[in-house]
């Protein structure tokens, strides 16, 4: 039974890690072909989010399934959770700045250009506090950015509903859903683990993983919706006109 559960965890972790990695791949692939710095930055942070969650989910799976708890593990856990505050903040900041650029009136929603410095300090403070807290009382006691994810999901989905830009609306919706599922994943385990019947079947962890996997899939869709991607029709791609070699343009 125990070995079946371990296999199930391994499969679930693999699904989560592969999906986050795939999202990262697409974000960096799209980043490579974009030329505007703000859009490149947005793609970069979507990719970094994927990398971050691969690292976090791998660490949590390993540490929680083996039950290891030493100072070293707590420091690594604290650093991972702490850096998550900064990655999530940078990801949201880059998305909001792109949203502003695409707004015809350049509205500075919630005066974000100033608020971001204040929130940035708060984020760094939260990151440091979570590292200290992980060292003092164990990384598993640190609630990983629950409030920030919930508020982020709310803000992103609200922005999506208001945006007149079809591509941005799609991107914000998937990004908001990703944040929402990750928040849900970080919140359900505790209440579910109080239900004895579910604990016996080890379902709280499975349900948590399912939400994280849904978050990973949403991040993948978010990465793919950074820009509209077309498909070349074979009929159109077979007759490229010949270009003579030329040396200069500017």
């Amino acid at each position, binding site marked *: 039974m125990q070995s079946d559960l371990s296999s199930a965890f391994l499969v679930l972790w693999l699904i989560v890690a592969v999906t986050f990695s795939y999202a990262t791949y697409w974000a960096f692939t799209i980043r490579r072909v974009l030329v505007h710095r703000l859009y490149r930055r947005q793609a970069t942070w979507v990719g970094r989010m994927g990398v971050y969650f691969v690292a976090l989910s791998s660490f949590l799976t390993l540490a929680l399934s083996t039950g290891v708890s030493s100072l070293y593990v707590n420091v690594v856990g604290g650093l991972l959770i702490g850096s998550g505050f900064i990655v999530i903040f940078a990801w949201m900041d880059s998305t909001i700045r792109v949203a502003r650029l695409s707004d015809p009136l350049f509205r500075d929603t919630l005066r974000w250009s100033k608020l971001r410095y204040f929130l940035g300090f708060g984020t760094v403070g939260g990151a440091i506090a979570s590292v200290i807290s992980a060292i003092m009382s164990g990384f598993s006691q640190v609630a990983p950015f629950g409030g920030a994810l919930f508020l982020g999901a709310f803000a992103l989905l609200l922005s999506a509903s208001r945006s007149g830009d079809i591509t941005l609306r799609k991107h914000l919706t998937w990004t908001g859903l990703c944040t929402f599922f990750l928040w849900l994943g970080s919140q359900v385990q505790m209440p579910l683990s109080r239900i004895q019947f579910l604990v016996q079947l080890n379902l709280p962890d499975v349900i948590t993983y399912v939400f994280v996997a849904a978050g990973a899939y949403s991040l993948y869709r978010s990465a793919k919706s950074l*820009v509209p991607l077309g498909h070349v029709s074979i009929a159109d791609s077979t007759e490229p006109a010949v270009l003579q070699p030329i040396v200069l343009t500017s």
Partner: protein
Amino acid sequence: MVSTGVGELDQLLKDGYPDKSAILVVGPPGIGKEALGYWFTQAGLSQGDFCLYVTRLAVSEIIQDVKAFGVEIKGPTVWFAREGGQTRVDINDLPGLSFSIKETLKVNGERSIRVVTDILSSLLMLNSSETIYRFLSQLLSETKQYNAVVLATLEDGMHQPQVLAAMEQLFDGVLELRLYEEGLRVHPLLRIRKMRGMSPQPGYYNFAFTHRKMEITPYAK
């Protein structure tokens, strides 16, 4: 014909954009379609053409972007911009904008004129597509009274497909810069959707921006 400022593109278009034409460059945000406007302006200034740049951004933001592409806009460009230009652009004031452009063209009507603008998507976000269609239709027909070529950029994926189709109808030429997915790869491809005086072009072309240059090569799947 009027040089695009990009050698390979001139070659593809048989020496450049047609005289007295309006060209639309369609592409997703961040792909670099504005660069075609920068090279077009640079080529115009080097030939002594009158160049008008109408932008929703501040002049300083455009200049920063121009430098990032390695383009040098040297010469007396007239700017209609949100900040820093000779005329302030208020995209809520369509009659005012139309009047300013027409007056500027009238004053410089003896010269070859190049107009570059990036305000189309913003106008479409703030107004109904019918209003912008009428506005643009009138403005483009006025500019054709002069020896002018207008190059406008439009964000792909920001508007409904029928809006995009309606806008394309107003222009003599449509260049499309898009990202195409092929398996696990993404290709930035250029396509000449239509061009006055040219037969329909079925092919796609790879394009890439290097410092001071746009490279265009034929694409085969």
